[in-house]
């Protein structure tokens, strides 16, 4: 009982500290280039505003129309793009995990030549910046449309419509490659261990050993590195939303660049689901490892 409460308080402390960190980053990026005497007071001022904005969350307002000065409550405006972007983020995350697992399964089972081809292909794909990838995909889609008149995926979001397939696809390419490399590396590390050899000696098939035994241990590596993957996905989606003209969370953030407290609040809201996932993953890893928490 004492231990759990200790653990919870530790997580809460970490949570609060990260929020303080986010506040500090936003405040300093807004006040760094003010005239010399005003920097520190402005920083302090911003931090205070951030602190109080938690208590007046319902009163936060966003300027919607500059000419007519229309203010709209913050939480009503953010809700739609927030849900939209988070859907894409998690869909991309799940997609990249599934694809990476499948890919590493295929690579593990495949003959040497195929292994080599997959590896060199991924090595090349690793060197393609996301911006270039999006541009290339768009050019390809346009070209296809011009040639055949078939629009597989609408490459640019319209005024009202929401695109899902293309952003999820683009966002998940780079994380998939990274995840695949991680998984494949740890599969190779597990493969030389004794329990695998024993299982093989018992006559279990290669894929049975992989699925039933190795993957269980690989999950630990996978889950401990999710933070990195989330980070990549977030910064990718930021670019993708801008380029595909999507009305998601990040374009909302981009529009409200000049109101620090809205900016800060949105970032905190982005952080919350990822923090919860992180805690859950840590718990699962500890359970898998057999460490009693």
């Amino acid at each position, binding site marked *: 009982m004492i231990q759990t409460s200790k653990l919870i308080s530790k997580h809460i402390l970490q949570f609060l*500290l990260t929020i303080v*960190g986010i506040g500090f980053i936003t405040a300093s990026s807004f006040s760094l280039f003010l005239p010399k005497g005003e920097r520190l007071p402005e920083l302090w001022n911003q931090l205070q505003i951030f602190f109080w904005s938690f208590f007046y969350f319902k009163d936060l307002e966003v300027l919607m129309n500059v000419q007519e000065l229309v203010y709209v409550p913050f939480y009503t405006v953010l809700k739609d793009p927030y849900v939209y972007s988070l859907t894409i983020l998690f869909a991309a995350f799940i997609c990249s995990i599934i694809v990476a697992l499948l890919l590493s399964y295929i690579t593990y089972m495949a003959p040497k030549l195929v292994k080599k081809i997959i590896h060199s292909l991924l090595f090349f794909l690793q060197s393609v*910046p996301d911006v270039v990838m999006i541009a290339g995909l768009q050019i390809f889609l346009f070209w296809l449309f011009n040639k055949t008149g078939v629009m597989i995926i609408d490459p640019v979001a319209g005024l009202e419509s929401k695109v899902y397939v293309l952003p999820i696809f683009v966002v998940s390419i780079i994380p998939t490659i990274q995840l695949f490399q991680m998984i494949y590396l740890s599969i190779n590390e597990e493969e030389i261990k004794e329990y695998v050899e024993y299982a093989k000696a018992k006559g279990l098939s290669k894929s049975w050993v992989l699925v039933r035994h190795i993957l269980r241990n690989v999950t630990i590596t996978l889950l401990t590195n999710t933070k990195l993957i989330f980070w990549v996905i977030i910064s990718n989606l930021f670019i993708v939303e801008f380029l595909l003209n999507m009305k998601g969370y990040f374009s909302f953030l981009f529009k409200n*660049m000049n109101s620090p407290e809205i900016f800060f609040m949105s970032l905190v809201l982005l952080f919350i689901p990822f923090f919860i996932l992180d805690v859950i993953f840590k718990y699962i890893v500890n359970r898998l490892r057999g460490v009693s928490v």
Partner: protein
Amino acid sequence: MKNLKQYLPILIGSFIIIGLVAFSFIYTYFIKDTIKPPPTFLYNDDGKMIGTYGYPPSLTYPFGVDRLGRDVFWMVIDGAKYTIAIALVVAVIRVVFGILFGIFYGFTGKKFEMIVSPFINAFRFVPAVIIVFPIFQMLQSGLGENQYKTIGLQILLISFIAIPILTNTIGDEVKEFLKNDFILSSKVIGAGNMWLRRKHVFPFLRTRILLLFVQQTIQVLFLLTQLGVFRLFIGGVVTLFIDDGDGRDMSKANEWAAMIGSNFFELSIDPWVIIGPSIAFIVTIFAFNLIKLGIERIIQKQPVPTKQLIHDTVHDFDSLSDFDFVNKTEVKTDLMKEEQSSYVLSK
């Protein structure tokens, strides 16, 4: 021969990078003045006009010509030195400070870590572009006072946003390294933290500096493309006008990221304007990736292949006949050897 094969990725990678930079310098100092600008109108063999600026790629213009009548290929070559230089400089600053702070961070206790690491975590959730954006805009609007100062500030900025995370990673590695047994024995003998840093931690990190440096260079190149999309260019900005009076911000230095970013909406009109710098980016990052691969291979020295374990001992004793005892006379010395080896293991 085996050595050469090991160094092959590094050699090819550095050859591409050095070649690009050298070609870029040769262009600015020697070739630039000899090249004629592309003609305003293009005629076919019959003398009929077939087009004006915005030529698609052809043999004379491998990457095409943009709508302002500039040859994209030579722009890319010209921009190579700036792009690569920016990436290298930023990477150097990042690695130097990251290692400096990382070494100290590695020695801090658990309580310190519990307070600082969530704070650093915040940097992971705010994309770098977002942090940089307001500052870059402010710098770009206040341009003209001192260009070198602006460029310096921009470079420092994109270096420092990555340092907290880098410090964290290096610090964690140092912490892991400090768990080694020989550190403990060194401490028992009476080594202080400063001594450990100098004699153990720094030599351990020294092998990794190059790897970190290349990794950071690749990351900076990625970051540059992202910044370019948001029209945040390092260096001066020129506004060029196309005939309809529509101004467009361009980088003065033909830096690749800026070339992609400022022309992004040309995508459906004449895509070759961004394909050229994109290819350049891919080639450069690929070269750096090759170098990275080579360094990783050398550091790991390839895990011991299983082939060595299955060692056919028969051929070791070719001089003996089939039914001789191999170690008959050396029983005693063998025991000695075993003792020695166990001593070595338990060190």
